[in-house]
């Protein structure tokens, strides 16, 4: 065994791919949904169904909002644990910020507060709010943005927050993804000759391998660059040299950099009033236009708010390019004059911004957004067909029966079960009463419970029949179709936004698009269920004939 290099690569690809494939499936699928996270948010929070808004006035609106903000209770609790003592009643804010993109009707604002006597000089506690920038109304804290606050973090953290374990698991999975891609290319004997080969008429084992190879190879650049950029985005966590072994030099460097730019590193400790930030935004926009790149404000950050050393940093929204913000202009908050205008990024910074930006995709390019969805779904197909090939190949070997049964059940859970859970959270979002305490917690509970149920169902209904999938696949396809159609119907009943309205009379693409995607998913699930039923019946007939033949032979 494993005598040749290719055989050892095949072993690596099979077993590492199998174990981490279950994680990668969720990463790819919820990553794909995150391409349209803002649109899913609109579907889930009907009160936010209005047009995207530019950065609102600071002087008339944001200033009051920031002043009224506080660190969140769980953040304070965590900070108390870190410093091992009580915190003062009022924490000093160290920064206020607001971020928006061309797809955001509501605005995310956040604040950082200093923690006294910290063990780590970078320690601070956070607060955040979501507001309607047209009138300054604050969204209730308990409303879950299913796209950007549930699906999106799920794809990089699995919502396992303990010691950031989930993010570590996803990091290992991304690394294994790179290994699987390289080893996959090595073991693929006819990479170019079979680049366009899919033979749906062949046996399941062969056609699933065809599809595995096809979806892996045609989107190889996408798979590779997304696994890689995912790792670089979290490099600060995976290789935290700056915050562990090099704390002092990093701090010295930051201070030196701030001094060289004329930006105060520490607060002065004296209160001072802030000048008009709206005027600073106008000035920043004027400077971008002079550089030949007119644009909108994407990110606004106030350092040491309320202090004499306070400064305001204004960044341009990167809608028309990959890097998501840039061209920062920094102003003295008290006098309002420009302290520092950032030059174009260096080559290394540029590459980093490109990798981060292409993964986080805050740019304005709808065709590319859809192509990303395609790439993500191709990744899902590649992983799912990998599971099917694994089990089909081993179904004839009776020694592998237990392994096959378990892998098949886990594959059902990871593929169709994940879709059932997704459908379930959407239905729960529309059905749970608005006044229910901890509503967002309940929505998430429904999601995880539904997923757990699909595992139980897959284990119960699992059956190894060579050449056709276990009935669990088909039955969960019915559930997906039912949930998807129910979600669309409930959206209509509870909000009055049916497709005729959102597509024709009162056009609102975020909701219409998501409803249409749900209906398309339902159609695909139904078709799959019917096809699987036809195959199961055909297989049952063959089995029946074989049994008869055996009985006849025995006499």
């Amino acid at each position, binding site marked *: 065994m494993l005598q040749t290099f290719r055989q050892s690569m095949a072993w690596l690809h099979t077993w590492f791919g199998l174990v981490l494939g279950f994680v990668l499936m969720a990463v790819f699928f919820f990553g794909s949904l995150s391409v349209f996270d803002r649109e899913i948010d609109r579907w889930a929070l009907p009160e936010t169904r209005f047009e995207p808004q530019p950065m609102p006035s600071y002087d008339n609106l944001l200033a009051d909002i920031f002043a009224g903000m506080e660190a969140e209770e769980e953040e304070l609790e965590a900070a108390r644990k870190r410093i091992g003592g009580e915190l003062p009643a009022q924490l000093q804010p160290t920064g206020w910020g607001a971020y928006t993109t061309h797809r955001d009707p509501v605005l995310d604002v956040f604040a950082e507060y200093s923690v006294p006597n910290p063990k780590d000089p970078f320690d601070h506690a956070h607060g955040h709010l979501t507001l309607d920038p047209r009138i300054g109304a604050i969204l209730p804290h308990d409303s879950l943005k299913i796209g950007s606050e549930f699906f999106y973090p799920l794809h990089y953290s699995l919502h396992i927050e303990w010691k950031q374990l989930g993010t570590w698991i996803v990091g290992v999975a991304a690394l294994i993804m790179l290994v699987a891609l390289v080893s996959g290319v090595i073991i693929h004997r006819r990479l170019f000759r079979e*680049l*366009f080969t899919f033979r749906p008429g062949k046996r399941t084992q062969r056609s699933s391998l065809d599809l595995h190879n096809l979806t892996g190879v045609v*989107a190889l650049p996408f798979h590779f660059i997304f696994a890689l950029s995912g790792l670089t985005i979290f490099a600060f966590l995976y290789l935290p040299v700056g915050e562990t072994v090099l704390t002092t030099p990093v701090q010295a460097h930051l201070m030196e950099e701030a001094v060289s730019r004329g930006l105060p590193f520490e607060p002065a400790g004296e209160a001072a009033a802030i000048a008009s930030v709206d005027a600073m935004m106008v000035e920043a926009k004027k400077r971008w236009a002079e550089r030949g790149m007119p644009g909108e404000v994407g990110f606004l950050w106030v350092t040491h708010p309320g202090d004499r050393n306070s400064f305001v940093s204004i960044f341009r929204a990167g809608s*028309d*390019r990959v890097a998501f913000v840039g061209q920062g202009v920094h102003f003295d908050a008290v006098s309002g004059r420009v302290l520092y205008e950032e030059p174009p990024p260096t080559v290394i910074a540029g590459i980093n911004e490109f990798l981060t930006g292409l993964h986080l995709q805050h740019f304005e390019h709808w065709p*590319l957004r859809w*192509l990303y969805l395609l790439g993500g779904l*191709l990744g899902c197909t590649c992983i799912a067909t990998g599971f099917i090939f694994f089990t089909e190949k081993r179904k004839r070997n009776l020694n592998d029966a237990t392994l096959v049964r378990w892998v098949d059940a886990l594959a059902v859970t990871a593929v169709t079960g994940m879709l059932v859970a997704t459908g379930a959270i959407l239905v729960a979002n529309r059905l749970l009463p608005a006044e229910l305490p901890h509503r967002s917690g309940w929505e998430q509970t429904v999601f995880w419970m539904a997923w757990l149920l699909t595992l139980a169902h897959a284990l119960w209904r699992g059956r190894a029949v060579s050449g056709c999938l276990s009935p669990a696949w088909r039955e969960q396809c019915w559930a997906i179709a039912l949930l998807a159609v129910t979600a669309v119907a409930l959206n209509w009943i509870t909000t009055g936004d049916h497709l005729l309205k959102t597509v024709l009379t009162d056009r609102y693409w975020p909701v219409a698009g998501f409803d249409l995607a749900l209906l398309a998913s339902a159609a695909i699930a139904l078709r799959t269920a019917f096809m699987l039923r036809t195959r199961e019946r055909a297989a049952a007939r063959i089995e029946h004939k074989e049994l008869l033949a055996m009985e006849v032979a025995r006499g």
Partner: protein
Amino acid sequence: MAEWLSLALAVGSGFLGMAWLALSLNVHWQQVRARALPPVKTLRALAAVALSVSLLLCLWADHPSIAVLVWVMAISGSALSVAMLLAWRPRWLKPVVVWAC
């Protein structure tokens, strides 16, 4: 509007490129044409031209950083469509090699 047209042409050109590349392989050529062997060199040269044109059209429509991504992804999508056509409806690819009857 001009950007959308340019992107549509880029996708079309990318699709043609991948279709010609696929048809330069014996097995796929035979799915589409009765004649035994494909004109490999001609088809691959055409594919190279079509894929380059596609990249140029992407660069014309968007900032280069975005254009590269659009091009790579459009090529992936094209390769997938060509493979699916070859699996289910190979005859639909006949028009792209109409001259080689």
